[in-house]
């Protein structure tokens, strides 16, 4: 099951440049929250702070409190333990090119020392089913390379790979920006179904996508969270003029 995410006084820097300023936000468990804002507003930095990936960039650092369920991730918790709870899907599908479809999904489990072949088969099938890819690859999963799939299939493979380690939270950084409308539709439908089992945070430049998949939306601008509310409120009657100006295309 998904867990809630609570962020308090989160600040992040790249060297001396502050990328996030005092972010406070509570994201409900088993819901999708969309993060929107113009390029450079800090939305990707924000989601990368949720799984401690921000600090992997040289000279980047983050401070504040981020609780994923009962786990305070900036409290000395090893980053690996954090990332086991939080799956991430990136803008560009990045399957391991030399691995089969099966091995792509099983990779995370194998890295964690999981080698029970029968159980692995079950988890791979379950993950590919959850990512709505099983029917398309069930006969070739062990033979074909992950790189042989179409862009949309590769992205669903990456989602299956993230789901295989049974995370509680799924972070998605513009997961459809490289996909055609059909593949985008499949991923969006998938997000809808995955909400039953995971908490989802999705960064998107596509406001129609945010309004289609997320119950809550946060608008970031210049490193600050300007407004956070129900998605329908943000897209029909936002409280802050800056949010309205952005979503109506008056700037950004």
């Amino acid at each position, binding site marked *: 099951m998904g867990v809630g995410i609570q962020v308090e006084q989160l600040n992040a820097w790249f060297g001396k440049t502050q990328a996030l300023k005092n972010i406070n936000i509570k994201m409900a468990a088993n819901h999708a929250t969309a993060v929107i804002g113009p390029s450079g507003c800090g939305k990707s930095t924000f989601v990368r702070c949720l799984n401690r990936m921000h600090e992997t960039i040289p000279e980047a650092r983050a401070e504040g409190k981020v609780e994923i369920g009962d786990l305070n991730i900036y409290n000395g918790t090893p980053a690996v333990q954090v990332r086991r709870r939080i799956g991430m899907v990136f803008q560009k599908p990045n399957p391991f090119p030399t691995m089969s479809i099966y091995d792509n999904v099983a990779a995370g489990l194998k890295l964690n020392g999981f080698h029970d072949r029968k159980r692995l088969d079950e988890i791979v099938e379950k993950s590919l089913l959850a990512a709505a890819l099983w029917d398309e690859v069930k006969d070739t999963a062990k033979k074909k390379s992950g790189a042989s799939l179409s862009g949309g299939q590769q992205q669903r493979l990456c989602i299956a790979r993230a789901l295989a380690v049974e995370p509680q939270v799924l972070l998605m950084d513009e997961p459809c920006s490289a996909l055609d409308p059909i593949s985008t539709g499949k991923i969006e439908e998938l997000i809808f179904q995955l909400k039953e089992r995971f908490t989802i945070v999705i960064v998107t430049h596509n406001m129609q996508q945010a309004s289609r998949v997320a119950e809550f939306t946060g608008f970031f601008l210049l490193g600050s969270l300007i407004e956070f509310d*129900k998605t329908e409120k943000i897209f029909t009657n936002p409280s802050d003029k800056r949010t309205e100006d952005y*979503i109506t295309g*008056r700037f950004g």
Partner: protein
Amino acid sequence: MRTRFQQGLDDLRQRLLRMGGLAEQAVDRACQAYIERDLARCHMVLEGESQINAAERDIDEQAFDLLAMQQPMAVDLRFILAVTKINSDLERVGDQAVNIAERVMDMADLPKVDLPVDIPRMAAAVSAMVRRSLESFIEGKAELAQAVLEMDNVVDRMRDEAFISLVKAMNERPEVTRQALDSLLVARNLERVADHATNIAEDVIFWVRGADVRHNAPQEPATVQEIRETH
């Protein structure tokens, strides 16, 4: 800045204002025709209807294109939705003007009688409502629209009074029944025009404030905090 989209919205606004002008003119002409038993004005109202109908179709088509092609959000989305609804109300205002003109044409063949109803006063109040609702749209001011909502009760009262006094007149003087019935229908048409003006004002409030004030609708109470607490 989405310049072409903004131009599309401006164009839509201009078209709706022209449509509003036509509807307002139709009501004024019909009322004047009633007061002066002027058949020429009645014909102008009937002939003007097709222009209003054509304007309604044009506006709907343009609004539909903007929705489909530009995928508007927030205030722009509310504006286009409000325009489509106001458009429909203005077309209905035009229909009511036609109904009034037809009553006047019926009355023209009948002897003039003195009836206990002040249609000119009611017409003035209704015209003012239409005018102010359109002003609230032009200015984008919810306060002006709010004032229109308050005027509706006054017109409703006028219609009720007209009904009581005209039914009484029909009972007491059966020979004026037809004229009284025509006047009663005119009062009812005017009251409906006032209802459409009220709808327009409500749509302006929706556009400007994002609030649904129809039928004294309560404002949505749910906040993010309340939603979180339920999960």
